[in-house]
Structures are given as structure tokens and as C-alpha cells.
């Protein structure tokens, strides 16, 4: 291992990981405090629940309110955040240095590629393990300062499972990036895999005999064996860690057999794909050189990959959900009815027995926001990205004012969420038609619009941060952290009526306060999101015009 590379990687990454841990802590603390504030009600509530359901969601009656909340932290928010950090580090391990052009210097040192990869890989492992352990400790802290106990909860075992799963995803990204040299491809494919396996582990068990299939999803092993109750289930953990080692070997093999890239401009695999007559057209459609018609059109077309792949993904999920609902229909009501609040809170207390409620719970509450925020943030951060790539000098040498350049880039923030919203609505419409669910078309259109509104806000936030600081990373990481927090505030504060009002502080609340499939467009919320987005973009444009460029 190369100590300097290892330490530099940690130095570059600790802040992002720390932001993630703090966001997790805040969400856990709010949730525990909200439940604890309910006093005996919460305990009674849990005690009254059927044992079977408690075990499905990995909660012990002894675990009490803390267990309920921590179930979420370990099975949902925590793994998304921590696996996300690991994937981003692993994808950038070598491919990041290639994209930045620094691999030319690193690669000329008397150190083998293998050792570079090992150092970077170990740094990723360190950050994943460190973040997971710190997050777990912070949950303990959250419980203690809320006056709750951790009795009956095996934090260590839950952490071990979380680490194994997060490392697995990171190793997938490492292998993909090592083979292709494409950081963006590796991280987006892996994030797609994470979301897919998350959905599989959540939705397959709803089907008869689906539980067995769900076990194929790595995500299942976060909670399947209920480590928080039963302690570590070593068999799956060992299998996952074995897969990590195997994937690392695959990464090593791939890295040592290929040419290294020399900077952003040269992406051998992509070029090869693009010149391939069979897939070339699709690839250039997706990644394209972008439209060169104008700054605004180029900004929109640059955002195409995430926008279209993400949009297609939600649309596809929406169709599947429609079919699924037809298949399981009536059974689902009774199952969901008795799920604990913490789980229902995540999906906004919808009534899952109606198609509208089922769609809201399965698509609108988690996946659609995730996709629209990711696409909008990447569009929003693109202005600052020009500074990182130093292409800004050329852009601003054009006879166009600086504010106008910024404003035209801002157009993508408006357009990209609309496209994702359209995809959502289209998926709902197809699912509705295929499943014969009879949902109102106006509600479907309203859902698309609300999704777009949420994207506007977070895209504009990323735009404002990027425009004001010139740092694309701050724009992305900062907005992601705030989005996690906003989502947590909206999901968990309403559990306790005393705190419910505070949820209004979260932009996610204005998006999700009612189910648009039933209530139609929430004009108040949408108006607020759009107005705030407009203000943020305007502020960003002004700030961009005033400061020195980096």
C-alpha cells in the first residue's frame, strides 16, 4: 500500500463522509425525539402490533421507539448514504485521476498500478467502515440525549451487516471503473443497482414466494436476518465480503490490462462504443457531444444521461408497480395497515390498499424524489463544473455577459425536472392502463408536476451554491446533505403531533403533504417550491456575475 496516496484520499474525502454522518445523526435524533415525545402511546402502539410484522421490519418490542427509528437508519437511510459514499470513492479510485489528467503523473511513478488501486481501495474501505461506525455511535448518542435506552438492540451486528452490504456495492463500482476507466459510468450503474436491489428487496416479498427471490438482492441482507435482534448472521456477511474480495480481484485484473486515460477528453471505451455501428447511435444519443446550438440547449443536452436513464428507470418502475398492484391487489391492505409508524412515515402514511396509495408509497415517496433530485442537482452543478474543467475561460470569452451565461445554464434546472416529471407521469399512465387501475388522469399529471417542482427546488439550490462558490463538489454534496435532511424532517417529525408543524420547514413537505394522485396539484406547495427555485436561481446568477471565477 502507498501511505501518501491512502492519506491524500482520506484527506480529500473525510469532509463529505462527515457531512453524511452528521445528516444521519440529525435524522436519527429527530426521529427518536419525535417518537419518544409520544411517551407511552408509542410503547402501547408497538406492543399492540402483531409479532409477525415487527419481525418483518426488524423491530423488537423491547427495542421500543429507538428500535423503530434505528430500523430505518440501518435499513434505509444509512445504507443509501454510506454505500453512496463508498461507491463514489471506489468509482473515482483510478478513473477519477484519469479524468482529471493527474494519472499521467501518478502513472509515471515507480509504483505499480496494483498498489495505487490497493491504496485507493483501502481508503474507500476505511471511510465506509469509519462512517458506518461513527453513524452507529451517533445513533446511540441520539438515543441517550433523548432519554431512551438501547436495550435489546444490537448496534454492532447491524453495523456489520451494513458495512458488508455497502462494501459490496463499492466493490462493484471499483470493478466497473477499473475496467472501463469511466467514473461516471461506474457510479451511475452502481447507484442504479443499489436502487434496483433496494426495490427488489422491498417489493418481491409482497409476492407469493417472492421472499426467496428477494434474497438475491444484496440489500435484502441488511435486514433479512434481522441483525439488530439476532446478532450477526455470519453466512451472508461472509458471502458478501467474499464477493468484495472477488470483485477487487476483477478490478485488479481489469486495471492491469488496459490503457490509462489521459484526461477528460479521451474516453477510449466510450469512443469505441460510439463508433460501434450497433450501439453507436444509442450511445451518442445518451452521452452525445450535446447540442451546440446555444448555451442553454447545450446545458440541457449535457444533462441528458442522468435525466433520461433516471426518468426511464422511474417510468419502468411505475409500470411494474401497476402490474404488481393488480397481482396482489386486496391482500396488501391488511399487511400494510399494521406496519409500524416508522415505516409508514417513510412513505407518508398512505393507504396502500388503493392504487393511488400504493403508487404514492412505492414511487412518489422515495424513488421519484431520488431520481429527480439527482438529475436536477447534476444540472444545477454544471455551471460550477465548467470552472473545474477550466472550460469556463473559453465560454466567458464569448460576446455574452456573465450573468447571461449563468442564466442560460439555469434553464437546464427548469427543464430537466420537467422531463423527469413527464417520465413519471408517462410511467403512471402506462401502469394505470396496463393494470386497469382506474386512477384519474388529472392526478397522474399532477404527480408529474409535483415531482418536477421538487426537482426545481433542489436543482436551484445546487445551482445557487455552485454559482456562488464555483465548486461543483460543494454544490452536489451540500445539496445532497440538505436533501437527506429535508427528507428526514418530513418523514419523521410528523409522527409526533407535537412536532408535526415543524415538518413544514422541509421542502419535501410541500411536495408530499398530500398525495397528488388523489388531491391533484398542491398549488400552494408547488407555488412555493417554484418561487423558491426562482429566487435561488436569480441569486445564483447575481452571485456568479459578481465574483472572481476560479
Amino acid at each position, binding site marked *: 500500500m502507498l501511505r501518501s496516496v491512502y492519506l491524500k484520499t482520506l484527506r480529500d474525502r473525510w469532509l463529505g463522509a462527515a457531512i453524511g454522518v452528521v445528516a444521519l445523526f440529525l435524522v436519527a435524533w429527530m426521529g427518536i425525539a419525535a417518537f419518544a415525545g409520544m411517551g407511552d402511546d408509542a410503547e402501547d402502539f408497538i406492543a399492540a402490533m402483531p409479532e409477525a410484522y415487527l419481525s418483518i421490519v426488524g423491530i423488537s418490542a423491547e427495542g421500543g421507539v429507538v428500535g423503530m427509528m434505528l430500523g430505518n437508519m440501518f435499513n434505509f437511510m444509512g445504507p443509501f448514504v454510506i454505500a453512496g459514499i463508498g461507491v463514489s470513492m471506489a468509482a473515482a479510485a483510478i478513473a477519477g485521476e484519469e479524468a482529471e489528467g493527474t494519472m499521467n503523473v501518478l502513472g509515471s*511513478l515507480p509504483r505499480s498500478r496494483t498498489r495505487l488501486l490497493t491504496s485507493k481501495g483501502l481508503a474507500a474501505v476505511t471511510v465506509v467502515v469509519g462512517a458506518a461506525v461513527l453513524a452507529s455511535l451517533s445513533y446511540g448518542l441520539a438515543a441517550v440525549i433523548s432519554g431512551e435506552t438501547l436495550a435489546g438492540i444490537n448496534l454492532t451486528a447491524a453495523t456489520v451487516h451494513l458495512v458488508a452490504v455497502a462494501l459490496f456495492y463499492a466493490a462493484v463500482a471499483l470493478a466497473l471503473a477499473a475496467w472501463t476507466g469511466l467514473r461516471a459510468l461506474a457510479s451511475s450503474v452502481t447507484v442504479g443497482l443499489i436502487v434496483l436491489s433496494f426495490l427488489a428487496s422491498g417489493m418481491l416479498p409482497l409476492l407469493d414466494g417472492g421472499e426467496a427471490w428477494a434474497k438475491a438482492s444484496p440489500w435484502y441482507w441488511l435486514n433479512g436476518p434481522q441483525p439488530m435482534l439476532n446478532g450477526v448472521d455470519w453466512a451472508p456477511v461472509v458471502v458478501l465480503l467474499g464477493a468484495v474480495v472477488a470483485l477487487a480481484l476483477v478490478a485488479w485484473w481489469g486495471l492491469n490490462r488496459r490503457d*490509462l486515460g*489521459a484526461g477528460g477528453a479521451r474516453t477510449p471505451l466510450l469512443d469505441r462504443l460510439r463508433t460501434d455501428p450497433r450501439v453507436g447511435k444509442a450511445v451518442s444519443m445518451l452521452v452525445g457531444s450535446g447540442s451546440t446550438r446555444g448555451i442553454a440547449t447545450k446545458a440541457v443536452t449535457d444533462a441528458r444521461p442522468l435525466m433520461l436513464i433516471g426518468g426511464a428507470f422511474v417510468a419502468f418502475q411505475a409500470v411494474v408497480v401497476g402490474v404488481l398492484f393488480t397481482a396482489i391487489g386486496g391482500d396488501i391492505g391488511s399487511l400494510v395497515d399494521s406496519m409500524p409508524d416508522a415505516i409508514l412515515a417513510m412513505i407518508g402514511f398512505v393507504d396502500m390498499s388503493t392504487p393511488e396509495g400504493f403508487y404514492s408509497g412505492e414511487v412518489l415517496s422515495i424513488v421519484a424524489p431520488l431520481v429527480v433530485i439527482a438529475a436536477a442537482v447534476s444540472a444545477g452543478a454544471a455551471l460550477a463544473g465548467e470552472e473545474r474543467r477550466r472550460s469556463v475561460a473559453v465560454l466567458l470569452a464569448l460576446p455574452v455577459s456573465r450573468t447571461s451565461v449563468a442564466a442560460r445554464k439555469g434553464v437546464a434546472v427548469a427543464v430537466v425536472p420537467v422531463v423527469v416529471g413527464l417520465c413519471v407521469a408517462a410511467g403512471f399512465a402506462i401502469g394505470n392502463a396496463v393494470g386497469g387501475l382506474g386512477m384519474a388522469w388529472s392526478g397522474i399529471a399532477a404527480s408529474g408536476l409535483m415531482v418536477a417542482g421538487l426537482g426545481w427546488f433542489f436543482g436551484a439550490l445546487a445551482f445557487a451554491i455552485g454559482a456562488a462558490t464555483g465548486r461543483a463538489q460543494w454544490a452536489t454534496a451540500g445539496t445532497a446533505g440538505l436533501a437527506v435532511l429535508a427528507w428526514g424532517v418530513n418523514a419523521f417529525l410528523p409522527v409526533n403531533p407535537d412536532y408535526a408543524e415543524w415538518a413544514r420547514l422541509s421542502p419535501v413537505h410541500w411536495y408530499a403533504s398530500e398525495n397528488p394522485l388523489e388531491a391533484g396539484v398542491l398549488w400552494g406547495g408547488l407555488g412555493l417550491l417554484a418561487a423558491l427555485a426562482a429566487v435561488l436561481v436569480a441569486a445564483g446568477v447575481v452571485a456568479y456575475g459578481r465574483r472572481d471565477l476560479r
Partner: protein
Amino acid sequence: MTDAPSLEVDHLTKRFGDFTAVDDVSFAIHPGEIFGFLGPNGAGKSTTIRTLLDLIRPTSGACRVLGMDSRRDAVEIHRRIGFLPADLALWNNLTGRQTLQYLANLRGGVDWKWVDQLSERIGADLDRKVGEYSSGNRQKIGILQAFMHRPEVLILDEPITGLDPLVQLEFHSLLRETADAGGTVFLSSHTISEVERVADRVGFIRRGHLIAVERMSELHDKALRRITLEFAAPVPAAAFEGLEGVHEATVEGATVTAQYEGSMAPLLAVATQHDVLSVASASVDLDEIFLEFYRDEVQAAEK
């Protein structure tokens, strides 16, 4: 010249998909030599160099540095060479000194007295973040990291990009010292003047083909010069054709332009038979010299 070559490119071919960036290129460089690798943009210089560094791998053929295979012994080769990439990119969040420390740590330590001495010579500023440097200052960090471990072989890809003339001069004397001390310098460039100034030998590459390798001194003997003569009245071109040393003569009204090698005397003898108003003479670009001498090879490469 009896020494074993310190750098050897042996029938190297590199393809990217269907595109051949380097086509069957062979040459060797010996200790104590500065070798200029000259060619227009996109000729295949960087591709050749990146293969030497094992950043990319040959489609066929091989490269040897200090007698070792570029693929098999990459790590050992890297220990003993210094490399300055084209289009240098460094870590924007590190200062110049941190960058050098980082790379020095990875090399297992360097002689900092030497580094400080070097940095003083080329006037590098080490205390600011790389992201805040001008491209010339960034390039200086690149030069320092290539020289800091006193490598036996230096591989420099268009190194003077962004450097001011004084620093270029200092840099070139550094190259000369390195070569005089028995080191080997492989210098790629697309500017004739740079190669002319420092190189002992020069290889000319075009569209992936190595057109010629020449000793600089021989090239100067062959050097073409161009003369422009202005007459009071039009003079027939035929008067200058077939003269000793004259390669080409064109007439435009009362102005005659001719390219010649060797002595100017026969040309002047003919010219003074007419009423000469003015004489202007200039050296011909090295590029044109190549084109002139290697017309056939260049034409073959263009196909």
C-alpha cells in the same frame, strides 16, 4: 555510440479502434544524447511517449527503457526516469510544495536540497495552491517533479508550454547539463526552434510515421536557405535554374525567390549580372527542410 541505447522504440504500432496513431515506429537514443521528437499536432508524439511510460500498451512492437521492457518492468523504469506529461494536470487542492512532497513520498524520498536549488533556478513558486497558478507556474512544478529524483532518462512531452523565454533558456541549459553528465533526454516538441536549440538528433514524425532521424549538425549542413532578390526589371527564371545548390526558383514580376543550399556565390554571380535593388535572405523552417528532403516519405505517409 557503442553504449547500449537507453531508450529504444522497436517497431511500435498503436491503434485506437481502426485509427492507427503510431505506425511501425523504430528509433533508439543513447546516453548523453538529447533527442528531439518533432512533429505537428496529432502526429503521434504523445502516443509514443505514453507507451514508453506504460500508460497505454502497444498494439504491436515494444519499447525498452534502460534495457528493460516498458510493460514488464514499468515500475523499475519509472524509478529511474523523469516524466513531464503534455497538458500537465496536477491536484488543484495541493500547494506546489505539497504536490512535490506527495510525489516524493511516493518515490520513496528525494534530495530536497537539489529540489530547492532547481526550484530557485527556474523561479518556481511553491507556496500557493496549484489551482491558483498560471499555466507557466504549474509547468514549473511539472519540471521539478520530473527532475527531482535525478533521473537517468528524462521524457518530456512538449515541456516549454507556457514558460517565458528566460525560463526556457534556463530549462534548456538544465537539459544540456543533464546530457553532459551522461543522462538521456527525450524531448517532444512541435516547435522547430526548440529542437534546433537543444537537440543532438531529431526524429520527425508525421501521421504516425517516423519520416526521418537526423543528426542536428548534418541537418544544418543540409540546411536550405531562402533568398529573395528584387530587380529593377523582370528577370527570366531560367537564368537561375540549374545553378549549383539552387533547389527552386520562382519569378513574380521583378522579384525572384530561390531556395539554395551551401554557398550563395553562384546565385549572386548570376544576380549581379542584372540590376539588383535588394537582397533578403532567411533560413527555411526545419519543417520545410524535412518536406523538401523527404518528399517521397512524407507523401507515402500522407496516404
